[in-house]
């Protein structure tokens, strides 16, 4: 068999051509972002909306529409896209790390630590959001670091998993204690914080979060070979030249840095990190070279859609975003499992 003929036979086999899927996802994400920006509680005629979006404010009548579109909606919609992308790629990384389709960033304590930080700030201080967000970020980093440090003492990734469970339990009990101490007003704040909300979106927040997320996501995407190798098994990954401790450290660090600020800024948004990578895997297969960028695009699409639903279903009120993702994601996930598909 000649080398040339063998090469032709070895043309890559895919479930669906990845570049096409990526392009499709990108186009869909863009479309949904535009749609979401154009609809909401305040009714803005389409022509005027497009005019304001494209050319900026021109007529004095546009005051309310300007404010809503450019100051409230656009940052929020973009925030949803960034948050969705971040949660999805972090979920994919965790699933690669634990070699388990049920893994998601919360396993290493990021969400519980973030919640503990936020609850602590809400109950023990009076600083409001200015204190809550950094406290949540600090909490998530500390919890993850603790899980990682303790988990290292047990060999294999099981150590990290067990440590994460332990940290989550400890954080949960501390949260319970603080909840008990909370006043009514604080309790209400806690409840809403934990249901998740993208309402804190603003241009300054986005100016930090977007580049930050892209930076660490790009770094994560460069680890695609290591993540593929992990699929073969930890021994085989080492045989291919990947030091497990280094890989684990990188994946956990990147996930904590990507998801931590999000938990701080939004509260808890569940299911995106768990379900989106699955959907992408079902279409594209598990090759991380495509899975990671595709997850980002699909996550952006999913969360923008969810936030749009949250904003228009009970106008003029809004549903908390974590509620929408759970209400839609939960049954959907059950359905996936019931189909018996292999992951």
């Amino acid at each position, binding site marked *: 068999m000649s080398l040339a003929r063998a090469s032709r036979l070895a043309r890559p086999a895919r479930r669906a051509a990845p570049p096409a899927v990526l392009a499709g996802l990108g186009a869909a994400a863009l479309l949904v972002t535009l749609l979401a920006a154009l609809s909401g509680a305040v009714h803005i005629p389409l022509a005027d909306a497009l005019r304001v979006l494209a050319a900026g404010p021109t007529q004095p009548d546009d005051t309310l529409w300007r*404010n*809503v579109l450019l100051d409230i*909606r656009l940052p929020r919609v973009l925030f949803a896209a960034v948050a969705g992308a971040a949660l999805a790629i972090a979920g994919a990384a965790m699933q690669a790390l634990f070699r388990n389709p049920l893994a998601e960033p919360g396993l290493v304590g990021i969400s519980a630590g973030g919640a503990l930080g936020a609850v602590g700030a809400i109950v023990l201080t009076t600083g409001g959001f200015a204190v809550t967000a950094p406290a949540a970020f600090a909490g998530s980093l500390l919890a993850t670091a603790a899980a990682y440090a303790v988990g290292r003492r047990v060999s294999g990734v099981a150590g990290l998993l067990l440590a994460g469970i332990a940290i989550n339990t400890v954080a949960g009990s501390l949260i319970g204690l603080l909840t008990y101490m909370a006043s009514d007003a604080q309790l209400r*704040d806690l409840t809403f914080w934990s249901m998740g909300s993208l309402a804190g979106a603003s*241009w300054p927040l986005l100016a930090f979060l977007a580049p930050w997320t892209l930076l660490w996501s790009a770094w994560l995407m460069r680890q695609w070979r290591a993540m593929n190798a992990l699929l073969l098994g930890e021994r085989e990954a080492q045989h291919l030249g990947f030091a497990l401790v280094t890989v684990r450290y990188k994946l956990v660090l990147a996930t904590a840095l990507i998801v931590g600020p999000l938990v701080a800024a939004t509260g808890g948004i569940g299911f995106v990190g768990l379900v989106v990578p699955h959907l992408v895997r079902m279409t594209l297969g598990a090759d991380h070279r495509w899975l990671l960028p595709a997850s980002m695009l699909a996550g952006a699409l999913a969360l923008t859609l969810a936030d749009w639903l949250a904003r228009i279903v009970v106008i003029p*009120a809004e549903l908390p975003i974590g509620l929408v993702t759970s209400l839609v994601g939960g049954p959907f996930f059950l359905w996936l499992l019931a189909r018996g598909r292999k992951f």
Partner: protein
Amino acid sequence: MAASLLKTALAILATACLAGAAHAAPDAPARRVVTLGGTVTEIAYALGQGHRLVGDDLSSLYPEAATKLPRVGYYRAVPVEGVLALKPDLVLASDQSGPPAALARLRETGVRVETISDQPTVQSLDDRIRQVARALGVPERGEQLAGSVDAALRDARALPDSHARAVLIMNRTGTPLGAGGGTAASLVLELAGLVNVLADQQGYKPLSAEALGALAPQVIVVPRLSLEAAGGLDKLRASPGVAATPAAARQCIVAMDDLLVLGTGPRLPQAIRTLKETDCVARQGQPTRPAG
């Protein structure tokens, strides 16, 4: 692209702030008012200004008309765009409402937002009435209402105090909660001449059957919805913790309207009077003539 968007956003902010500043001085009385906070809404109606309201929040349950207005959600999780959709020119926000960022954003877009005192104290009630009235441009009516509430309060407080030991139990989720100090319920109990056995506790906390027995209240006040959740008066009286109390023995479990007893609104005097005039309460403890 982000840079030009940012610049545009900043330009808009600047324009909006100027526009907002122009709106700040109320030349014309506000025509479209959104109220956030149950008693804020109630006061607006009590001042006869209910027809100017275009929206309120989920906790605005009195009067009936308030429940027919568009609801923007819970007053501690106010959606900015939702409020803007109602095109308000005035938002009366309880000082408990939030998140602060949302209210700030509303102000930035040029909407007049007035913060209204909303603490469970008589003084706050007084301030609240006057603040709402002033914001709505009807200060004289505010004086009137404040005055009549004051008078009704004085009359209610003049009734004999029983100094009986009392507790308010609320049950919405299956775990009974007791009202501690700093709650509206505690204020009602104290103004009604009762002694809140949980006064040292801060806020609502779960109350175990054993603790309830140990506290031995002579009067138990229960909001009506909680009573229904417990299965009615007889079932509540028979339940473990309650059955051991003097209140159960003397048949002094008082059901009261939720809104009356869980908030401090203009009907506070009514709540106090209802409690004081309840037979079993009046007969309890050591009745004395209160000073003034």
